[in-house]
């Protein structure tokens, strides 16, 4: 005996829940199968979500979603050995405009799951889907252990770890060059201390992007009572390091440890991130009876300073839902790709297509931050006779890289950002 639904969604992350939400709204019977103990338990992410898709599709969400803080301060910092160079940007309030907020993804997903369940979607956790089922080349359901589920449409929203797609040969294993590892620690610091140390009001949050010659890229997000600190390192270099050590190293940095002093680490997580960008996007994220949404399809926008996945996941979920409503069972869901193109998502990915290449350039993370640190150190060290900027630059560059190379990298970086 097998059960039959209009749609079966594999994965209860932002993309999967979003498809389920929009289809249930249109009267489809939907079942969502989640591998973790509950939606979001397999997700790891930094802490920031862009609000525009929620504004568009979940009216009134600002009242009851588990928002931690609204991001009002953006910072870009280079961690030198003991010091830190930062550029800060203060955002004024944009109450209904497009902005971003910090959140625990697991809580946001719990909230989304409750919205989805209100629409009578069946959400089954702790279920590992073993394979997609096909009949005459058309996806017609899934199998989990002994049990099968039949459906008119199958939505693959399995996230960055694309086991199911790989099993069916729809997607290759990503090369280590396209994979980064995100490790994150959540530290309980306390609301008052966070406000004081980061210069924030009660509802105001900080999003800080870190560049370090030691470990690469990292981030800091402030929650209400917690600070989320993380490092994203590529497997292609730094492959001798281990996640916990990297985080430890970050926490021990004098400038960072000041911010976290007295805090209690309450959560540690590590996860694969596909950073491949446009090149990693599935060329055909659909077929007869199935569509692929969110991270699984490669819908991650890496602008170099921010990595955006959750908003694209929600958006692609909505588009997949629309494609399903416009496609008869058994047909190719090619409308989905058209909708993705029309939405501007594909263009955005194209625009930033060189970012992953730049980020895999070791000079960006290692040599230049080091150089900037030396430069600033020379400028601000109080010697008997001050140096000119030019002298400082020359001294800093000495023996490291040529000025021409520096200029070339700079040019390439500017062009692709």
């Amino acid at each position: 005996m097998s059960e039959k639904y209009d749609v079966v969604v594999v994965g209860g992350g932002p993309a999967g829940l979003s498809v389920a939400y929009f289809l249930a709204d249109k009267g489809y019977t939907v079942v969502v199968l989640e591998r973790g103990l509950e939606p979001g338990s397999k997700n790891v992410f930094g802490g920031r979500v862009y609000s525009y898709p929620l504004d568009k599709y979940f009216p009134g969400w600002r009242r009851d979603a588990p928002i931690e803080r609204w991001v009002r301060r953006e910072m870009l910092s280079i961690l030198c050995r003991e010091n830190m160079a930062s550029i800060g940007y203060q955002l004024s309030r944009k109450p209904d405009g497009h902005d971003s907020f910090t959140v625990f993804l697991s809580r946001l997903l719990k909230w989304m799951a409750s919205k989805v369940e209100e629409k009578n979607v069946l959400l089954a956790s702790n279920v590992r889907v073993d394979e997609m089922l096909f009949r005459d080349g058309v996806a017609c359901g899934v199998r989990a252990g002994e049990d099968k589920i039949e459906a008119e449409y199958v939505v693959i929203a399995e996230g960055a770890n694309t086991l199911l797609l790989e099993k069916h040969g729809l997607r290759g294993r990503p090369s280590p060059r396209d994979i980064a590892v995100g490790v994150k620690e959540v530290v309980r610091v306390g609301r008052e201390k966070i406000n004081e140390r980061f210069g924030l009001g009660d509802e105001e949050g900080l999003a800080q992007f870190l560049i370090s010659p030691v470990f690469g890229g990292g981030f800091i997000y402030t929650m209400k009572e917690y600070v989320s600190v993380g490092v994203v390192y590529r497997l292609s270099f730094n492959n001798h390091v281990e996640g916990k050590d990297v985080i430890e190293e970050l926490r021990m940095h004098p400038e960072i440890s000041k911010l976290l002093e007295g805090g209690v680490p309450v959560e540690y997580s590590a996860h694969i991130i596909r950073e491949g960008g446009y090149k990693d996007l599935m060329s055909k994220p659909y077929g007869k009876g199935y569509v692929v949404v969110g991270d699984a399809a490669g819908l991650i926008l890496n602008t170099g300073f921010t990595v955006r996945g959750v908003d694209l996941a929600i958006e692609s979920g909505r588009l997949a839902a629309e494609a399903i409503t416009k496609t008869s069972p058994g047909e190719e869901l090619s409308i989905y790709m058209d909708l993705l193109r029309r939405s501007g998502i594909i263009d955005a990915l194209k625009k930033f297509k060189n970012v992953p290449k730049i980020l895999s350039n070791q000079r960006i993370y290692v040599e230049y931050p080091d150089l900037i640190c030396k430069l600033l150190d020379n400028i601000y060290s109080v010697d008997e006779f001050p140096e000119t900027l030019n002298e400082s630059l020359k001294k800093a560059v000495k023996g490291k890289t040529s000025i021409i190379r520096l200029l070339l990298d700079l040019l390439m970086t500017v062009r692709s950002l």
Partner: protein
Amino acid sequence: MRVLTPIKLTVDISQLKYESSGEPLIDIAPRKMGDSDKCAIEEAVRLKEKHNAHTVVVTVGSTPDHERMVRDAYAMGIDEGYIIEVDGHENLQAVNVGEIIASMAEKTGPYDLIILGAGSLDTHSYTLGPIVASRIGIPIIASVDSLNYVEGYIEAKSVMEDGTYIYRSKPPLVVTVTTEANEPRIPTLKTILKSKKMEVKRLSIEQLGVRLEKVGLVEVKKYIIQRKNIVWDASEDFEKAVDNLVNLLVGEV
């Protein structure tokens, strides 16, 4: 035969974190069903499969985690589930929880067997089953490592520090089971989906006519054991590590 299994949402101690002052961060610790509660459900479901028992679970407290736990019980094969709505379920005294369960059992019963997990790791260790038994006024067979129903009798074995006790009695009975009793089944996709569609019944403590008395909790702190935490690595200096042990054991340190 009717079987009731009270289940408890407990703090997952393995994931408990502490403030630097030693205060545990109870509010953010994950909650889960106790391991021995799962074994209790498994015993109930086996009685359903072998002896056509009607199986019921009950839990005290009405958070979303409680509802999830009742559905997890459904996914394992339980027929009917109750949530007893009460505020501050984690501050309830064991004797209050026992009384609530006893009243619920009287209202929705009678039950031939009430099977509980012997001990939860957080607070009401090994006392809830006995409390329920004496509130209802039926005998208990406690902390059993195996349970059988043979020709109208419950037969159970309990391994204790001084030996093995073998109990035999006719229902009605309260039985508490340890995690040795069985290997709880893992729900399948089909049973999980079925569990989602089943009704979860709700009762308030007013409906049960229970009045709660409070015992005040002053504070909770991490148990700070003043241990020395001196560790020697035998791979560095084997002889010295062993010598250190010898000195400790013959009392020369």
